[in-house]
């Protein structure tokens, strides 16, 4: 039944599906992050794992993770505004603003990482 979350009829459904998907990705990342941190008691193991994460191949995944996190946060604010009962008639403008802001923050974050 959960597959019905991902059955978009309109662009807003797509935004909702992406919110769920990015939420799942972030939850998975959090588990992975905590697993990493749990190796702190074993410095050798921790260092070997950190070497993997700082590899250039892994940075592409980091970029995708940034995008997922930024979208989840910005879109979350959009939903909060609507859930407070505001700007329902301007939901298309809000969604466009969300997408634009997501990409701007993402590009800025990538720029900061590359620097």
């Amino acid at each position, binding site marked *: 039944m959960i597959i019905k*979350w991902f*059955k978009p*009829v*309109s662009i807003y459904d797509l935004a*909702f599906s992406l919110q769920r998907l990015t939420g799942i990705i972030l939850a998975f990342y959090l588990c992975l992050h905590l697993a990493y941190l749990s190796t702190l008691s074993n410095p050798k193991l921790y260092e070997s794992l950190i070497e993997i994460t700082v590899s250039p191949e892994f940075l592409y995944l980091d970029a995708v993770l940034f995008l997922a996190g930024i979208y989840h946060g910005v879109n979350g604010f959009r939903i909060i505004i609507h*859930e407070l009962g505001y700007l*329902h008639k301007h*939901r298309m403008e809000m969604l466009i603003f969300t997408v634009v802001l997501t990409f701007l923050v993402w590009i800025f974050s990538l720029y900061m990482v590359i620097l």
Partner: protein
Amino acid sequence: MIFKIKRFDGKNFYFQDFEVPVKKGLTVLDCLFYIRDCIDSSLSFRMSCRMGICGSCAVRINGKPALACETQVVNLKEPVKIEPLDNFKVLKDLVVEFDDFFLKHKAVKPYIIRNDLNYKNPVEFIQKPEELKKYYDFSLCIKCGACYSVCPAAATNEKYLGPAALVAAYRFVADSRDRGARERLEIVMDDHCLWRCHSAMACSEVCPKKIEPAKAIQLLRRKTVLEAIRRLIP
């Protein structure tokens, strides 16, 4: 124009193609009538008013729920795919089971509750235009089920009341003549009601009456929160 209609014979779902001669001004409902009258009399669909008031003819047209009687065929992409509404049990072809939908609607007490009614000496309940404005848009709901059919919360939780019932709840909670707000808010505060909405806004997008069910749900949430705070104050 080719119509691709999803059929259900009680056991199997399958698509069947029908060719219908169309011209400007014809609606999808007119075409369904043509198919039933001239091609296949076994085709089942629900309809009543033919003018967007009863909400009976809501079906999925090219993937999006809409009223068949209000959808002009010349505006549609060919082939026109007609399917029954999602999130409802299909009875036959395009006819779906609405019992559960109306039970949920009934559950929110969609009527004015007063304890000072006197049928022997009836009095008029005065309402100012600005008070009417607070709920008028939401009173236009025709219970077509389009919102319910696209709601992801309704798709994943059978007990969820759905947008239409919550719109009805807000419509009466916001009515200045009503005195049953507290008992109605008590109903919608339940685990499977108001707070199950995830603000996907699909309901507002497909509503043929453009009444913004998503907004009604959020306004009802606001009322519920205020009621919960009020209860904390002795």
